Every structure is written in structure tokens, then in C-alpha cells.
């Protein structure tokens, strides 16, 4: 009984959840970033309290049995008839996201105690301040109840990622990566903003539930405009969730500290894009063509990133590309109508990707290198890290009973059952990526943790504050998949769109993906178990062109720099020309004309009193004569009553 009361209170006061880490951020900043112990204490306790409340919210939502969403809102301001409110919408999706974000965020902050131990006091406190703000923004984002609010938090998330990617701002590459992440995601956000403005203008409100109610009538009146809006909104998700063609910022974001990468890749930032598409799924489902676009972009991104991940030697890069690839999976699932599947994968992915990143961070912390060619045999000296990393790999590769198996199976069944034209492409890429995922993840596992050491040998297992979060995450990564066990369908009952979707009847995709995953693992073992570095260079010499292509990331960076160089700078030059010569020309012309007239007219001021007198006489004479003439020809005296 008490527990239910607590859950109800949590839902009623849900806005406290993002406020807690935000308060921690304010306090850390207010304390002048001086106190090494205070900052993490505040930050972690805020996250812990937020997690408790989030659990309450989740429990409350479970108790409500898919009841209507709880909404709290306060008016903010109004422009004309347009009411803007600041509000908090709690439905099942929010409950899931809030719990996930606060749990993973909290674990990452505990882990950072160990990982950031070499940081100076100010940097350490700054790190926790940003982490708190980042978590607060993401928690706010998932419970926003209107478009303006979600956009606000959306940008806050982007800003925090900028701060954290560029955390070591003295390093040129880090500050460059931060700028790149910010600018590239802003590019997508532009579309998001335009979409929001269009939709809010058409609907006359920014509230999600009200917009959802008005959508059918907009669709009746304006027809195709919803597809345009959906595509514009999706642009925001493309930027944030690093989908093709804006995926280029995510690998560079590895310049930040590893816990930041874990947070960005698992719980916040990239999850925001997928969450947004889920939140606005009603808009997307009004325009099936936009959903097709989502599916195609997702599938292509998954494929592209997986191929690049095959050849990366930096352990964090492998994980970065695998994130892009898995996000592609989520988009693919959402695009083919697998709302549950996409969100389930978002959840499981958050756990195993956070786990993988933190493991990689643990290795990097011990060995002081990112390069897998200088690792090898780490598993013997760091058994906890090794085993948890293996669990993460098994999960992401989709081996039962680990979590990734269930979520990926749902995605593949959704894709398999998809029968729109062009579905063959989606199916083939979907299954190919399973193979590649298993391959590159086990490649990274084998190169890092198996075989003989190839680099530094004096190191030991990380401390408890790093291994405990790893163990907890590993537990979730291993077992959270059972929520989606087909016979029970707990997750599907909790999160679904419209009616409960059709459950896959065929077991073919499951067997196929399992076979492909095992095949990928076996290939990786065969190629890399012995002499990984030598085999790698052998492969490289056999397929030089392919390697060059993949190592240059499909030349996407070059494509964008060319685009910027010629297209963007071209437009900028034209604009600059117009500004300098036409706009400024008009302004300067008016100034110059006035000056010229002044220069000429000043000679009238001769200083000779008699000359002035002549002018006055001529003026008076003209007025008198003119007055008479005017009244003769135009009898205006009527006007004066005469």
C-alpha cells in the first residue's frame, strides 16, 4: 500500500527527477569547482535519488496497466492565441527512459570516480558538473510534454555533449571534435526546428497530446504536409542519433573521456533521436513514406557503420561505429513499424553499450592506449573487465540468452514481416549486419583480451569503484532481455504503439540471425585468435582498395568537407558579396550622398550679410507672387473658409 502511495507521489512530482541533477550541477558550480569530494557526492546522490523516484514512476506506470498518460503542466507564456506551457508527460515510454537514464547515468558517474582519478580538482568537479547537467537535460527531454520544451532540452543535451567531448579542451583534437559534434548535430536540429514551427503553426498548439488530437484534421486539410513535417523532424533525429549522412560526428566524439562516451552512446544524446521518433510516432505513422525513409536511412546506416567497424584498430572507434550501426537498427525497426522492437533495442543497447564502453575505459585506464594492436592478453590480468566485456559482446552479437538476442530478434522479425516494396534491401542489410556485428565485436574482444600481451605488461585490475558498475551493468546486459521473452511479452505489453502489434509467427529470422551471429564469431576467432596483428596486415595487403575505402569511412568526412568547401562556402561567398557591395553599398551610398550635398551646400554660408539679405528678399518675393498665382489657379481659399 505504501509503495503504491510512493509511486503515485513520484508520478505527481515527476519534475523533481530532472531538477535533482540540475540542482547538483548548480551547487557544484556555485561551490567554485573547488571541492574534490563534494562534487561527485552531490552528483551521485542526486542521480541515486532520481533513480529511486524513477523506479517509483516505473512502478506507478506498471500499476496503471497502460492507463492514460499522466500530464502535469504549468502555463509558461502566451503569444496571441498560442499557449506555451512547461509540462511533464509521463507515459510508459517516459517511465522506461527515465529509469534507464538515471540508472546508467548514476553507474557511469560512480565509475568515473575511478576513471577520472588523475584529473586535477577543478577538472574533476567540472566533469561532475557537466555530467549532472547532461543527465538533467536528458531526464527533462524524456518527460517533455510539448515540442518547444523537447527542443529546449534537445539543445541542452547537445550543448552538454559539446562540453564533455571537449572536456580536455587543451587538446586540439578534442576541441575540434566537440565543435564538429555541435555543428553537425545543429545541422540536423535546423530541420527539427523548422518541423516544429510548421507543426505548431498548423496545429495552433505545441502540446504533444493536443497535436495528436488535431493531426487527423490537419491531414484532411493539408494532406501531404505531414510527410514534409515528419521528414524535417526526422532530420533532427538523424543529427542526434548519428544516422547517415550526419553520422560523422560520433566517431570523433571519442576524444572525450570514456565515461562520457559511454553516457553519450548509451543513455543520453544518441538515444534522444530514437526517443524523439518514438515519441512523435503518431506523426510519422500518418505519413508512411516518411517511415519508409526512416527505415531506409536506418538500414543503410547500420550497414555503413558495421563495415567501417570491421577495420578499426582503436577499441573506442569499434564501439563508436557499433553504436551507429545499432542506432541504425533501432531506426530500421521504427521505420518498419516495429515500435516495440526499436524501443526494446534502445533499452538493451543502452545497457550493453554502456557496459562495453566502461570495460574499454577500464582497459584504457590500465594500459594508457586505445590501440588494440598494443593490447592482447588483458583478460588474464583483468578478469572482471574481461568477463563483463565478453557478456557485452555476446549481448550485442545476439547470442541467447543475453539481452541483445531478444531485442535484435524482435527487430529482425519486424523487418522480416515487412512487406512494402523494397523490403528485400532492408531484410538483406538487416541480416548482413548481424554477421558483421558479431565479427567485429569478437575481433575487438579477441584482440584486446585474448592471446599474448603485445604492449605494456605491468598493470592490474581496476578498483572496485570501476568494477562494481561493470558488474551491475553486465547483470542487466545479460538478463534484461527476458523482459521480451516471446512467451511472456512483458515489454510488449508495457510499450507498444496503438494496439498490440502482431507477434512474429515465423521462427526463421531467429534461427537465421543466430546462425549468422555464430558464423561471425567463428570467423573472428579463426582470423584473430592467433597472430591477430599479422593476420590483419595480411588481409590488408590482400584487399588494399577495400581497406582504404573502409578506413577512410566511405569518404564521408571528405564528402562533407568538399560540400562545406564548395557548396557552403560558395553560398557564403555570394552572400558576402551581396552584403558587402549591395546592402552595405546602399547604406554607404546614402551617407556619401549626404556628405557630398553638405560639402557643396556649405559654400552658401558665405558670411556676407548682404548676400543673405538678397536670398531672403528673393524668397519673400517668390512666396508673395506664388501665393497670388496659386490662389488664382487653384482656389484653395475654400479650405480656409474664404
Amino acid at each position, binding site marked *: 500500500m505504501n509503495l503504491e502511495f510512493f509511486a503515485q507521489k513520484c508520478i505527481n512530482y515527476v519534475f523533481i527527477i530532472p531538477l535533482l541533477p540540475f540542482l547538483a550541477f548548480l551547487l557544484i558550480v556555485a561551490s567554485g569547482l573547488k571541492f574534490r569530494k563534494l562534487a561527485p557526492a552531490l552528483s551521485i546522490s542526486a542521480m541515486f535519488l532520481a533513480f529511486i523516484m524513477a523506479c517509483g514512476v516505473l512502478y506507478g506506470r506498471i500499476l496503471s496497466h497502460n492507463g492514460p498518460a499522466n500530464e502535469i503542466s504549468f502555463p509558461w507564456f502566451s503569444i496571441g492565441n498560442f499557449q506555451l506551457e512547461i509540462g511533464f508527460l509521463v507515459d510508459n515510454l517516459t517511465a522506461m527512459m527515465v529509469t534507464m537514464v538515471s540508472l546508467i547515468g548514476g553507474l557511469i558517474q560512480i565509475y568515473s570516480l575511478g576513471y577520472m582519478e588523475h584529473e586535477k580538482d577543478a577538472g574533476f568537479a567540472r566533469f561532475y558538473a557537466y555530467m549532472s547537467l547532461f543527465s538533467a537535460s536528458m531526464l527533462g527531454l524524456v518527460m517533455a510534454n510539448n515540442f518547444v520544451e523537447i527542443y529546449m532540452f534537445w539543445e541542452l543535451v547537445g550543448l552538454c555533449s559539446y562540453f564533455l567531448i571537449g572536456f580536455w579542451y587543451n587538446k586540439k583534437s578534442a576541441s575540434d571534435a566537440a565543435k564538429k559534434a555541435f555543428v553537425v548535430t545543429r545541422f540536423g536540429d535546423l530541420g527539427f526546428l523548422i518541423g516544429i514551427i510548421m507543426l505548431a503553426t498548423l496545429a495552433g498548439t505545441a502540446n504533444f497530446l493536443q497535436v495528436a488530437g488535431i493531426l487527423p484534421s490537419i491531414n484532411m486539410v493539408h494532406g501531404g504536409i505531414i510527410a514534409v513535417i515528419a521528414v524535417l523532424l526526422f532530420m533532427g533525429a538523424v543529427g542526434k542519433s548519428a544516422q547517415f549522412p550526419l553520422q560523422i560526428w560520433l566517431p570523433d566524439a571519442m576524444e572525450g573521456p570514456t565515461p562520457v562516451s559511454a553516457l553519450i552512446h548509451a543513455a543520453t544524446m544518441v538515444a534522444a533521436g530514437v526517443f524523439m521518433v518514438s515519441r512523435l510516432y503518431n506523426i510519422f505513422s500518418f505519413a508512411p513514406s516518411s517511415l519508409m525513409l526512416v527505415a531506409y536511412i536506418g538500414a543503410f546506416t547500420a550497414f555503413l557503420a558495421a563495415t567501417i567497424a570491421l577495420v578499426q584498430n582503436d577499441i573506442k572507434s569499434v564501439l563508436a561505429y557499433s553504436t551507429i550501426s545499432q542506432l541504425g537498427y533501432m531506426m530500421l525497426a521504427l521505420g518498419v513499424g516495429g515500435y516495440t522492437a526499436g524501443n526494446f533495442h534502445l533499452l538493451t543497447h543502452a545497457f550493453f553499450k554502456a557496459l562495453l564502453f566502461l570495460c574499454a575505459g577500464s582497459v584504457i585506464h590500465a594500459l594508457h592506449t586505445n590501440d588494440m594492436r598494443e593490447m592482447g592478453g588483458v583478460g588474464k590480468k583483468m578478469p572482471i573487465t574481461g568477463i563483463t566485456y565478453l557478456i557485452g559482446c555476446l549481448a550485442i552479437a545476439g547470442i541467447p540468452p543475453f539481452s541483445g538476442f531478444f531485442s535484435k530478434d524482435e527487430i529482425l522479425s519486424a523487418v522480416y514481416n515487412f512487406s512494402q516494396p523494397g523490403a528485400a534491401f532492408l531484410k538483406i542489410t538487416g541480416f548482413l549486419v548481424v554477421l558483421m556485428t558479431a565479427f567485429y565485436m569478437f575481433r575487438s574482444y579477441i584482440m584486446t583480451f585474448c592471446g599474448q600481451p603485445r604492449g605494456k605488461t605491468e598493470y592490474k585490475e581496476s578498483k572496485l569503484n570501476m568494477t562494481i558498475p561493470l558488474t551491475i551493468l553486465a547483470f542487466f546486459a545479460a538478463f534484461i532481455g527476458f523482459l521480451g521473452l516471446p512467451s511472456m511479452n512483458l515489454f510488449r505489453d508495457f510499450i507498444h504503439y496503438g494496439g498490440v502489434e502482431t507477434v512474429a509467427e515465423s521462427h526463421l529470422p531467429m534461427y537465421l540471425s543466430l546462425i549468422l551471429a555464430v558464423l561471425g564469431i567463428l570467423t573472428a576467432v579463426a582470423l584473430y585468435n592467433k597472430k591477430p596483428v599479422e593476420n590483419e596486415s595480411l588481409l590488408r595487403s590482400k584487399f588494399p582498395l577495400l581497406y582504404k575505402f573502409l578506413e577512410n569511412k566511405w569518404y564521408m568526412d571528405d564528402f562533407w568537407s568538399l560540400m562545406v568547401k564548395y557548396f557552403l562556402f560558395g553560398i557564403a561567398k555570394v552572400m558576402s558579396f551581396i552584403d558587402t557591395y549591395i546592402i552595405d553599398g546602399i547604406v554607404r551610398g546614402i551617407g556619401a550622398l549626404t556628405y557630398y550635398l553638405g560639402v557643396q551646400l*556649405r*559654400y552658401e*554660408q*558665405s*558670411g*556676407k*550679410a*548682404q548676400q543673405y*539679405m*538678397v536670398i531672403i*528678399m528673393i524668397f519673400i518675393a517668390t512666396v508673395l507672387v506664388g501665393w497670388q498665382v496659386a490662389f488664382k489657379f487653384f482656389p484653395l481659399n475654400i479650405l480656409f473658409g474664404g
Partner: protein
Amino acid sequence: MIGIEYYLILSLLLLLIGVYGAITLRHAIGILMSIELIFNAANINLIVFSQYMQSMLGQVFALFVIAIAAAEAAVGLAIIIMVYRNFHSVSVDEIDLLKW
């Protein structure tokens, strides 16, 4: 009886002579004298209209104008003397400091 128009023509002529003198003369005293002519043209008008309208108002006003003209002449001459002391000249086309 001489018609009113003759007086008005006389006054107009006086005015034009005064204006012409004020514009063309170089000597400051000459200009002052020309301005006296313009004053007196106005005075003639005042008196003529006073007679024409059978009212004493115009004549009284003319007396005031003469008094003010005397004061004005005194002030004008004083200014001219000060100008002469500073510039060693009373030729108005040489006194043109207030210009561009």
C-alpha cells in the same frame, strides 16, 4: 485731395530704395541709413491708413516707430564703432568671419 494710392506709391518707392541701398552699399553707415528709409516707408503707410480710416491709432503707432528707430540707430552706430575698433574697417563685405 490727393488720392491714397499716390502716398502708397511713394512709400513703395522709399521701401525699394531702402532695400536696394541695404543690399548694394558697402559702407555699414549707408546700410543703416537705408534701413531708416525702410522704416520711414512703413511710417508713411501707417499715417496714410490712419488718415484714410479716420483713426488716431496709426499716428500714435508711427510715433512709437520713430522712437524705436532712434534707439535702433543708437545701438546700430555703437555696434559699427565696435566693429571699426576690431577690424579697422566698416565695409561689410570684409567682415565675413561667420562662414564655412
